[in-house]
C-alpha cells in the first residue's frame, strides 16, 4: 500500500508539472506577442509619433516622402464592424430567441447544427463566397462592388455563430421562476419573452455583442477579398475601405524588414492589439457585473 501511494504521488507530481508547463505556454505566448509587437512598433511611434499615426489621413508608405497615417484604416475598421453589427445583430437576437424559446424537436436540432457549422467554415471561404455572390449584387447598386457594404454583409453572417451561441445560453440561464411568474400573471408567451426574458438576459446580450465586435475587428481574409482596400476615409457604404488587419496583411509580405514602413505595420498591429484588449476587458467587466447580480 505504502509503495503504491508514493508512486501515485510521484506520478501526480509529474503530471502536475507537465500540465503546469503546457499551461504556461499560453501565458508565455501572450507575453512574447506583446513584447514583440511593441518592440517592433517602437521606431514608428518614436519617428512618426503616436498622434500623427492616429490622426494622419494619408498612407503612402512607398512614396519618396512617405506618410504613415492610420486614420482611414481606423475609420474603415469601425465602419465595417458597425455595419456587420447592424446586419448581424437583429438576425442573431431573433435566432437566439427562436432557439431558446420557440423551436422544438428535430428542426431545432438542425438549426443549432447549422449555426455551429457556420462557425466551422474557414474565413477565406466566406471571402470567396462573398466575391462570387455578394460583390456582383452590390455592384448593381453602384461602384465596383468591392465595398464596405460587401464586407459588412459577410462579417454580419460570420459573427452569427458567436452571437447566437452566447446569447442563447444566457437566455436559457434566466431562472425559470421569472418565466413561470410572468405566465402565471396572465402575460402571453410573446409578452414574457419581450418584457421578462430579454431584459433579464441583458448582460448576456452585451457580452455577445462585445465578442462579435472582437470577431469582426480581427477578421482579415474575408475582408481583404471584398473590401477594395483603399486607404481613404469613405463617403458611402458603396465605397471601398481598408481595415487595420488588411493593412498589415497586405503589405507585410514584401516589406523590407527593419524599415520605417515595417515598423509602421507593427504599429498598426499595436493599435489593433490595444483596441481588442479594451474589448476583452469590457467583456470581463460585463460578465463580472452579471455574476455579482
Amino acid at each position, binding site marked *: 500500500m505504502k509503495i503504491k501511494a508514493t508512486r501515485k504521488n510521484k506520478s501526480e507530481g509529474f503530471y502536475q508539472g507537465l500540465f503546469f508547463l*503546457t499551461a504556461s505556454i499560453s501565458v508565455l505566448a501572450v507575453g512574447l506577442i506583446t513584447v514583440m509587437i511593441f518592440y517592433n512598433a517602437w521606431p514608428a511611434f518614436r519617428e512618426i509619433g503616436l498622434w500623427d499615426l492616429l490622426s494622419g489621413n494619408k498612407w503612402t508608405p512607398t512614396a519618396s516622402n512617405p506618410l504613415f497615417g492610420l486614420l482611414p484604416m481606423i475609420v474603415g475598421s469601425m465602419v465595417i464592424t458597425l455595419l456587420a453589427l447592424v446586419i448581424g445583430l437583429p438576425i442573431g437576437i431573433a435566432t437566439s430567441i427562436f432557439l431558446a424559446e420557440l423551436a422544438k424537436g428535430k428542426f431545432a436540432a438542425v438549426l443549432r447544427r447549422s449555426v455551429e457549422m457556420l462557425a466551422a467554415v474557414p474565413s477565406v471561404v466566406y471571402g470567396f463566397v462573398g466575391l462570387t455572390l455578394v460583390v456582383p449584387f452590390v*455592384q448593381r447598386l453602384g461602384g*465596383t462592388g468591392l465595398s464596405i457594404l460587401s464586407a459588412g454583409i459577410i462579417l454580419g453572417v460570420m459573427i452569427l455563430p458567436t452571437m447566437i451561441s452566447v446569447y442563447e445560453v444566457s437566455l436559457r440561464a434566466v431562472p425559470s421562476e421569472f418565466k413561470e411568474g410572468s405566465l402565471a400573471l396572465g402575460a402571453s408567451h410573446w409578452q414574457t419573452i419581450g418584457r421578462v426574458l430579454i431584459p433579464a438576459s441583458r448582460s448576456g446580450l452585451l457580452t455577445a455583442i462585445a465578442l462579435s465586435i472582437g470577431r469582426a475587428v480581427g477578421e482579415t481574409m474575408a475582408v481583404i477579398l471584398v473590401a*477594395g482596400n483603399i486607404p481613404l476615409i469613405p463617403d458611402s457604404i458603396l465605397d471601398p475601405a481598408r481595415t487595420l488587419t488588411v493593412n498589415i496583411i497586405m503589405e507585410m509580405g*514584401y516589406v523590407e524588414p527593419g524599415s520605417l514602413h515595417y515598423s509602421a505595420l507593427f504599429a498598426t498591429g499595436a493599435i489593433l492589439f490595444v483596441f481588442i484588449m479594451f474589448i476583452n476587458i469590457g467583456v470581463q467587466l460585463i460578465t463580472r457585473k452579471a455574476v455579482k447580480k
Partner: protein
Amino acid sequence: MKKIKMGKTLMAMVLVLSLSLLFTACGNTDEETGDSDTTEQTKITIVGSTSVGPHMDALTKMYNDSVDGSISFTVEQVGSGQGIQAVSDGSADIGMSSRELKEDEGPMEEFQLCTDGISIIVNSANPVEDITMEQLKAIYMGEITNWSELGGEDAEINLYTRESTSGTRGAFEELVLGKDANDEQIVIDETICAAVQNSNGQLGQGVESDPYAIGYLSMGLVENYSIKTLSIDGVEATTENIENGSYVLSRPFLLLTLTTPEGNVSDFLNWLISNADAREYLEENGFIV
C-alpha cells in the same frame, strides 16, 4: 479505471513527444548554419530584388532537394539597388535585380534568369483595344478618368492596383509613371483607385467582373482570366514583341556576381539556366525563359 489511466498516459506521451519535437526542431536550424570545413563554398548568400526573391527562395529549395543538399542558401529580399550594392562590396555571392544595370553600377557578371512582361488588362466587354503610353500614364496619375476619352463608353475608369510592396507594381511605376521633377520615383496614388488587390489572382478577378476596370498583370497570368489585353502604341503584348524589344512593358530578372563564378555558385547558376524543372517553374509563374 484502467481505460482512463491509459488515456492519461497516452496524453502525457503525446505531450512529451510534441514538446521534444518542438525543441529538436529548434535545435536543428542552429546546427545547419555553422559547419564548413571543406574547401568548397557551402554557404551562398543571395541578396536583392523583392520580385525575384520569392522565386529564388523556391528555386534554392528545389536545388537543395534535387541536386545538392549540403549548401545553405540565404535569400535576402531588400530591393534591386541594395542587391547590386551588396554584390559590388562583396557581402553577397549572388545579386538579384529586376531591372537592367545602370551605367555607374558594375562592372559585374550578368546572368539573365528570365524576362517578366506586364500586360495592361481591361474587362472583356470593353470596346477599347489600344492605348498610348502617355494615356496609360495619365490614367494612373488620375488625369484621364473617363473611358470616353479613350474611345470607350461614357463611364468612369475604375483603377485596379496591387499593394505598395508588390514587385509588379514597382516595375509598373518605374516603366510607366517614371520620375518626377526632383528625380524621385512617382508612385500610384491609392486614393484615386477603385481597389487595391494583394495578389495577381484578386486583380485578375476584379478586372474580370468589373466592366469599367483597368489593371496590370504579369503577362503569363493573363490567360487564367477571361479578360482583354490592350496593345500599347499599337504593339501587342506577346512573347515575340518582348524578345524583339518592341513591347516596352518588360524587365529582365538578372542574377549578378562580382567575378566569374566558380564551384558551387557556378553549379547553381548553371542549374538555374539549364535545368528543365527550374525552367518549368519559371514558366508556370508567368515568366519568359
